[in-house]
């Protein structure tokens, strides 16, 4: 039997094995994608069924000229960048801290990981009603106890507050990944740096951070994928408001489709989200690929 013939047979067997997965993938992702693309060129409003037929590029024109869209786009990017900055920044420091020997380290590690196990809606509700509520919140009573007027965080700084809640949820993830990376650092390397005269800051800057570079890229990549589609926290706490101050792209699409019943306009927003996600993905994959090389 020739090699070519054998390869051909293996290929057919491989295809047969692959096909169930491919078919499911097609049904669950390609079909909705194509339908969204189709609706984005249609007049499709649940409030006014008489208005139907092709809309041409009207849905896109309305979307792109809508100031809310620009705001939500900026909010999406600010949310992603802000949460990444906080969770990776503090996560790195915490990872180094939790690598040290100290009393009660095991319990402290469990505590730092625990926010990750709280589901987003619950976390958002806890923050909104238990912690930051201007009247009942723990934070507010603490402020009043020392005679200060509590800030109504969700009203006055909606984006910053949402960002904080999401960062609180994602910090455990980055600590978890970065802590294992810190632990894999060869202790002789740290000692060699000490012999070279590197103090704690220099060791952190020149030995630990470069060692963590790969892990940090992985954290950034995975978090970005999830952070682009943050929805529950916004829906529970601010519902995108006040106005559109805390509306990101995911929430805008939801509002268009299920609050304003404009399926066509929401589909156009969905297509925009796909484009943006892909642009981000291209940058990320390039950065990661460069960083993952030896």
């Amino acid at each position, binding site marked *: 039997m020739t090699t070519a013939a054998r390869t051909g047979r293996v290929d057919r067997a491989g295809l047969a094995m692959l096909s169930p997965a491919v078919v499911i993938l097609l049904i669950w992702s390609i079909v909705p994608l194509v339908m969204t693309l189709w609706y984005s060129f249609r007049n499709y409003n649940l409030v006014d069924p008489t208005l139907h037929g092709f809309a041409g590029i009207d849905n896109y024109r309305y979307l792109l000229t809508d100031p809310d869209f620009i705001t939500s786009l900026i909010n999406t990017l600010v949310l992603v960048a802000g949460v990444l900055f906080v969770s990776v920044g503090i996560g790195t420091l915490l990872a180094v801290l939790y690598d040290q020997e100290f009393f009660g380290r095991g319990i402290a590690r469990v505590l730092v990981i625990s926010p990750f196990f709280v589901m987003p809606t619950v976390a958002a509700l806890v923050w909104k009603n238990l912690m930051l509520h201007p009247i009942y919140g723990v934070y507010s009573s603490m402020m009043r106890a020392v005679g200060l007027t509590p800030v109504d965080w969700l009203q006055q700084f909606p984006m910053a507050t949402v960002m904080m809640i999401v960062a609180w949820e994602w910090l455990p993830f980055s600590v978890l990944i970065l802590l294992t990376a810190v632990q894999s650092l*060869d202790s*002789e*390397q740290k*000692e*060699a*740096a*000490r*012999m*070279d*005269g*590197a103090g704690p800051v*220099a060791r952190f800057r*020149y*030995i630990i951070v*470069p*060692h963590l*570079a790969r892990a940090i890229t992985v954290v950034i990549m995975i978090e970005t994928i999830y952070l682009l589609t943050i929805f529950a926290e916004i829906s529970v706490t601010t519902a995108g408001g006040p106005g559109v101050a805390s509306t990101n792209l995911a929430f805008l699409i939801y509002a268009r489709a299920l609050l304003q019943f404009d399926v066509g306009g929401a589909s156009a927003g969905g297509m925009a989200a796909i484009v943006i996600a892909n642009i981000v993905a291209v940058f990320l994959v390039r950065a990661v690929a460069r960083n993952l090389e*030896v």
Partner: protein
Amino acid sequence: MATVELRDIRKTYLKDEIIKGVSLTIEDREFVVFVGPSGCGKSTLLRMIAGLEDITAGDLLIDGRRVNDVEPAKRGLAMVFQSYALYPHMDVYKNMEFGLKLAGMPASERSAKIRDVARILQLEPYLHHKPGQLSGGQRQRVAIGRAIVRNPKVFLFDEPLSNLDAALRGQMRVELATLHRRLNATTIYVTHDQVEAMTMADKIVVLQGGVVEQVGSPLELYHHPRNLFVAKFIGSPPMNFIPVVVETSSTESVTVRLPDETFLDVPVDGSNTPAGTALTLGIRPEHVALDEPGLAGQVEIVERLGAATLFHIRLRDGQLLVAQSDGAADHPLDSGVSVGLPPRHCHLFGADGLALAAHARHPLLA
């Protein structure tokens, strides 16, 4: 220019004392090797000198100055680690530059120094390679280079050759010895390999269980081991030991009764060993004289190493004795053989393990 002095250095981990009072003087430009079985505390001692481990008690002096509480980098030492501990994200040049940069040396001076060291170590073609792209021997050289550029007073080596294969180890051993002659720096070298210790050291420190068993030149340790442990540890194949009993003794010599009821007159100081004392007689395999009158036995195993042949001989009393002879020696397996024990090569050890003082010194040590 550096001397290192240890004065009753002790180290306690939790409640276990692992270094039990080590006193030692290391002269300027000396190559000192700490050797001992694993867990003897040799690496801990080195790390204490380096400043990576705290000293529980005692004084450490470098150039006469007490440095117990001085930061590692400020002690003027450089260390080569067993795993090389190169910084993987920096190229060879930056690895060597790191310490100099932190010390605030100007860039031009750094560059000149690094190029100089790279030339000595034949690392010039690899200056911009990352450690991951280098072979074991090259990484080893980079680690040594990183130590040299800092121009330290004392070099510390922690089992630097144990990760290399046998051929490379032999080659690096010669390179290290050459380098030491060239740099003339005080060096402390930790190894468990006695060949490394014997070939490179000016002075060997044999450690066991946190205690110094003997300090001396390689041949001193080989020919005049202070106790049973050193006699067993130094030398390959190891020394043979035969239980004997003192028949008569004087300051001039000790006559011992061998297991086969014959007598041997060993020229050592027997003033503290009255008749009837049980001793251990030690003799190195190369000193066992085959086909000479003495103990009778049977050849059990023959190991031919080419240049030498090792005969494992089962004595009458069931004990195994190793005799080393030249490569051409021929004794068939299971044949009977008689082995002589030349008295001047015999060591006698008391029940406390200490050797009885020999009257004649080895000619190279006289």
